[in-house]
C-alpha cells in the first residue's frame, strides 16, 4: 500500500512538473484526486484493509492527497502568472500614438484678459456692474464735467444717434449711473464696449472695450489710487512690474494721471516692443472731480474717490503680443485657437 501510494505520488509529481497547460493539470487533478481518481479508488478499497490498519492507511492517503494538491496549486499559480505575463506582453501598445480627444473650444483673448482683470478687482472687493452702450449725451459728457462745446467733446470723435443720444465714448458714463442709483460708498468695476469714430487700422478700431473702476468713500486718497493700480499691475503683468504715474488731464478727475507699467518684455531696459521707452502706457486715472460728485448731490467735502479707465484691447494686444488689432475682429479660428 505504501509503495502504491508512493508510486502515485511520484507519478503525479512528474506529470505535474511536465504539464504545460491548464487542461493537462486539470486532467491530472481529475485522474488522481477526482471522484473516480486513483486516490479515491484507494479510499474506496479501505474495506479490504484490516480494521486496525485503516486509520494509518487513511492518514497516508490524506497526506499524499495534500502533497499532490499543494504541488498542483503551486503549478497552477505559476501557470496563471505566466499566462498574465503573456497577456500583458500581447497587449502592449504604442504609447506615442495620438490621443483621442473631444476638442475644447477657446475663449476670445479679449475675454481671457478681461476675466483676469475682473478676477483681480473682484478679489479686491469690487462689484462688477454694467451700463448702456447707446447712451444719453448727458451721461457721456456733461455729467462727467464735459459741458457742451467743450473741446474734449470734440477730441473724442463721438458717434451720434440724435442730439441727445450717442454711442458712449467711454465707460466712465457708468460712474454717473452708479452714483444716481445708490448712495456712496462705491467700489465698482465696469467693463464694456465703447465707440469712437476712428478708422480701422492695426492700432485703431471704431469699437473697442474699456474697463472703468470707481471707488468713493470717506477717506480715499490719491495714494490709495496709486497703491490699488500698482497692485493690479503686479497681478496682471507679473510681480516685478513697476508702475509710473504721470500728471495728465481728464475733465472728470482732478488731479489726473496716466499710468505706465515697466515693459513686461524687456523689464524696462527698452526694446522694440515698448519702442525703446522701457515703459508702456496702460491707463488713465485720477481723483473724482468734485463737480462730478456735486452734480449727483454728493458732498465732495464728505466723500472723495478715485476712478480709472483701462483700454482692454491695449492690454490684450500687449499681453499676448498681438501686432494687429484687426485680428481680434476677424475671428479666424487659427488665431482664436492660440489662446
Amino acid at each position, binding site marked *: 500500500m505504501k509503495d502504491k501510494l508512493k508510486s502515485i505520488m511520484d507519478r503525479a509529481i512528474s506529470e505535474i512538473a511536465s504539464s504545460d497547460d491548464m487542461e493537462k493539470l486539470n486532467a491530472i487533478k481529475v485522474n488522481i484526486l477526482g471522484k473516480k481518481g486513483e486516490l479515491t479508488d484507494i479510499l474506496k478499497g479501505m474495506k479490504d484493509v484490516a480494521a486496525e490498519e485503516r486509520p494509518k492507511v487513511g492518514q497516508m492517503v490524506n497526506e499524499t492527497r495534500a502533497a499532490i494538491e499543494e504541488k498542483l496549486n503551486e503549478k497552477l499559480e505559476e501557470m496563471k502568472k505566466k499566462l498574465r505575463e503573456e497577456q500583458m506582453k500581447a497587449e502592449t501598445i504604442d504609447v506615442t500614438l495620438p490621443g483621442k480627444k473631444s476638442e475644447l473650444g477657446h475663449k476670445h483673448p479679449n475675454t481671457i484678459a478681461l476675466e483676469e482683470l475682473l478676477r483681480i478687482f473682484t478679489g479686491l*472687493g469690487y462689484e462688477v456692474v454694467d451700463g448702456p452702450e447707446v447712451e444719453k449725451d448727458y451721461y457721456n459728457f456733461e455729467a462727467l464735467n464735459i459741458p457742451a462745446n467743450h473741446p474734449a467733446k470734440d477730441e473724442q470723435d463721438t*458717434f451720434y444717434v440724435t442730439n441727445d443720444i450717442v454711442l458712449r465714448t467711454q465707460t466712465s458714463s457708468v460712474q454717473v449711473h452708479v452714483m444716481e442709483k445708490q448712495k456712496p460708498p462705491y467700489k465698482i468695476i465696469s467693463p464694456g464696449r465703447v465707440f469712437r469714430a476712428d478708422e480701422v487700422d492695426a492700432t485703431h478700431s471704431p469699437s473697442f472695450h474699456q474697463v472703468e473702476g470707481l471707488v468713493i468713500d470717506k477717506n480715499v486718497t490719491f495714494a490709495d489710487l496709486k497703491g490699488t493700480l500698482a497692485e493690479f499691475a503686479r497681478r496682471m503683468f507679473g510681480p516685478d512690474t513697476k508702475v509710473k504715474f504721470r500728471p495728465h488731464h481728464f475733465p472728470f478727475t482732478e488731479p489726473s494721471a496716466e499710468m505706465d507699467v515697466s515693459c513686461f518684455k524687456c523689464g524696462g531696459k527698452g526694446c522694440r516692443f515698448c519702442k525703446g521707452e522701457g515703459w508702456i502706457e496702460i491707463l488713465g486715472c485720477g481723483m473724482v472731480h468734485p463737480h462730478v460728485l456735486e452734480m449727483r448731490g454728493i458732498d465732495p467735502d464728505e466723500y472723495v474717490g478715485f476712478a480709472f479707465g483701462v483700454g482692454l484691447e491695449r492690454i490684450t494686444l500687449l499681453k499676448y503680443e498681438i501686432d494687429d488689432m484687426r485680428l481680434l475682429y476677424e475671428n479666424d479660428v487659427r488665431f482664436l485657437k492660440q489662446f
Partner: protein
Amino acid sequence: MNTPLSWIKAYVPELDCTVQEYCDAMTLSGTKVEGATCFDADLDKIIVAKIVKIDKHPDADKLVVCQVQINEEGDTIQIVTGAKNVFEGAIVPAVLDGGKVAGGHDGSVTAGGIKIKKGKLRGVESNGMMCSIEELGQTRDNYPDAPEDGIFIFNDLPQYKGIKLGDDAIEVFGLHDANIEYEVTSNRVDCFGIIGIAREAAATFRKPFVPPVVKETGNNEKASDYISVEVKATDLCSRYIARVVKNIKIAPSPEWMQRRLAACGIRPINNIVDITNYVMEEYGQPMHAYDLDTIEGKKIVVDRAKDGDTFVTLDGQERKLDAGVLMINDGAKAVGIAGIMGGENSKITDDVKTMLFEAACFDGTNIRLSGRRIGLRSDAAGKFEKGLDPNTTMEAMNRACQLIEELGAGEVVGGCVDVYPNPKKPWVVPFSLEKCNKLLGTNVGMDEVREYFKRLELDLNEAGDAVTVPTWRQDVLRNADLAEEIARFFGYDKIPTTLPSGEATMGGYPFEKRVENVALDAAVAHSYCESMTYSFESPKVFDKLLYAKDAPERVAIKISNPLGEDFSVMRTVPVNGMLTSLATNYNRRNKDVKLFEMAKVYLSDSEKPVELPDERVKMVLGCIGEGDFFTMKGTLEEILIAEGMKGLVTYENKGNIPFLHPGRQAVVTYGNKEIGYLGEVHPDVADAYGIGEKAYLGVLDMKLICEFANFDYKYEGIAKFPAMSRDISMVMKKEITAGQIEEIIRKRGGKLLESYNLFDIYEGVQIRPGYKSMAYTVTFRDKEKTLEDKTVNEIMDKILKSLEEIGVELRK
C-alpha cells in the same frame, strides 16, 4: 507743440540738464514730452577750420587738395575735396577723422549718421571732410547764409564773428540743441506758448524764470488817429487791440528768428510774417496784419456775418458764411474772418506802407464751430479754439511791436486802440492744505507749498488759506486743482502707495454675468471658439438676411455720422457678424469651424429714438463642417442644462426666421417664452455670404435665459427601486413629429414616467411611401416601491390608445 530746447533755455537761462533729463522731468511734472530730436545726435568731431593752401589733385580734375588749419596753434591736416566754392583763407566747418555727419550734401539723411575716416581719394591722402549745411542735417531754410551748393563758409558773416579755429562747429551752429515735442492737454492753454512751457520748466527745475522784457514802443503819434475799433459782437470778442506800423521795410528776418521758426515747423517768409508767427509761438496768441491802405473809413468793426455772405480769404478761396461766423469789417466791407483767416482784399504785400496790427481774443467755441462749418482750419484758429487769456493779448501785441522796432521792420505808431469792456481779473480760490493732503494721502508742509505756488505765480496769501490765480491759469478754479499743482511739484512718484482703508466690501459679479459665463464655458466645452464682431453694420444686412421690407427688425438705430454705410446701423439681429466670420473661415479653408459670440443687439422703436434702446445680449452659435441641425440642437440643450434649466424645452418650426432653411428651423420655447431659435442657414443666405457649405446657427436670448437660469440645485435621491421599460414600435404618416409622440407619452405617462428615448427612426423600402417608423423605449419608476407589470401595462395602454387616436399604427 514743437519747440527747440534752446528757446526754452532762453527764458530759463540757468537750466542745465541733458535732453533726456529735461524730457523725463517735464513729463513727470505734467508737461508731457512725446519725443525729442537731438540735432547733434549724428554729429561728432566737427570743428572750425581754415583752408590755408589749395593744390590741384594730381590725378583728378574735379578734386583739389587742401591744407586745413585746425587750431590756433597752426596745426594743419590735408583734406581732399570736390567742392567748388573753396578758396585759400576760407573758414569752414570740418569733420575730423573718426567724426560723424548727419547726411549727404544732397540733403539726404542717413539714420545713425555717416562716419568719416581718413583715407585716400584718387591716391591722395585725405584726413577729414569739409561740410555743407546739408551734411550737418540742416537746410538753407534755417541757415540762409549757406551757399546753394558747396561748403559752408563762415567768412564775413557777422553772426560768426569771434569764432576761433578749433572751436566746436556744432556749438557755433547752435546745433547742441534738440527739438522737443510736447503733448499739451486742453486745460493748459498757457502751455501752447513757449512762455508757458518755460514757466513750467523753471518751476520743475527750480531755476529762475526770465521771460522777455517787453518795453514800451512807438513814436509820438497816436494809433487812434489812424484807426477806430468798434466791437458789436461783444459776446464773441472779449478784447480787440489794434496798433499801427508805418514805413514798413519788408525784408528777411534775422537768422536766429528763422532758425527758431524752422525748428517749430514754420517756414520763414519775411520779417513781418515771421514776427507774428514768432509771437504766436511765444505767447500762443495769434496776430494778424492788414494793409492799412486797404481799410476803408479808418475803421474796424467786429460783427457777425449775414447768412449767405461770401468772402475771399487770403488763400484766394471763396468761403460761404453764415450768421454764426464772426467777421472783421472795415467801414465798407469785410476784411477777415475773425481768428480764422484774413481776407485777400486786405493782405500784406511786399510793397505795403502802413500796417494795421491786430491782436484779439475771440471766443474759442465759436471759432471752432465756425471753422468747421466753413471747412477751414488754420494755425491761428487752432490757438483760438483753446480759449485764450485776454490779458496775454496785450503782452503779445507789445512784444510784436518791440520786435518790429528791434528788427527795423517799420516805425511803430505810439499807443493802441484797445477795446476791452470787461477786463478779466485774477480770481481767488479758497485753499486748504489739510484737504489737499487728505486728498493726496501726503503730508506736504506749508513752506514747501508756498515755494511751488510762487514758481507758478499762484499767489498764496499770508494766512495760507486763499490763492490768487493769474488769468492764464484758467484751469485752476478750486481746491482740487491746487492739490494737483502740489502733487505735480511734490512729485507723483513720491506720493505713497496704500490701499483704501474703508470698510471691506464683497466684490462679485451680477447674476447676468454669471449666467453668461456659464453659457460661455458650456460652449467652450462643446468645441466652440469665442468670436467678436462690431455692433454696427450695414442696413443692407437685412436684405442679405432675406428680411421682408416691412420686417420690424429693420427698425435699427441709425448713426448720424458713421464711418461709412457698412458701420451705420446698430444691429437688431445678432447673426450677421457670425455669418461673416464663418465666411472668413470658409474662404481661408479652415475646416469644421465652430464659433460663438455674446453679441449685444439694440432694439428700438425708431431709427432716431427718444429713449435708450433695449440692449440685450444674444448668444449666437454658428458652425460649418462637422455637425448638423441636431448637433446644434444638442449644444443648445447642454447650455440650457448648464444654466440649471431642467424644465421642458420645446422646439417648433414656425417658419418665421427668414435667413434659415424653411424646413430646418425651430423656435426654442421654455416656460412659455421663446428663448431662442436654431436652424440650417438658408442656402440663398449662405450664398450671399459666400459660405460654400452647410452652416448652422443657434441663438439664445440671454436676458430671457437669466429669467430661468437657476443654480440653486437640490439633491433628489438616487432611485432605490428598479425601473421598468417598454419598447414601442410605430408606423405613422411622415407629418407626425417626434414632438407630438413625446407630448402624448408625457401627458399619458403620468407621475411614474421616468424617461423616454427615441432609439430608431426609419423611412424606406419596408415602409409604405409617405410613412415612417419610429421606436421608443419608455421607462417607468416608482420612487416608493417596486413597480408591478400590471401598473405599467395600464399606463402603456393609455399611451397607445392616444397614439392610435392621432393615426399612429403600432407594429406588433
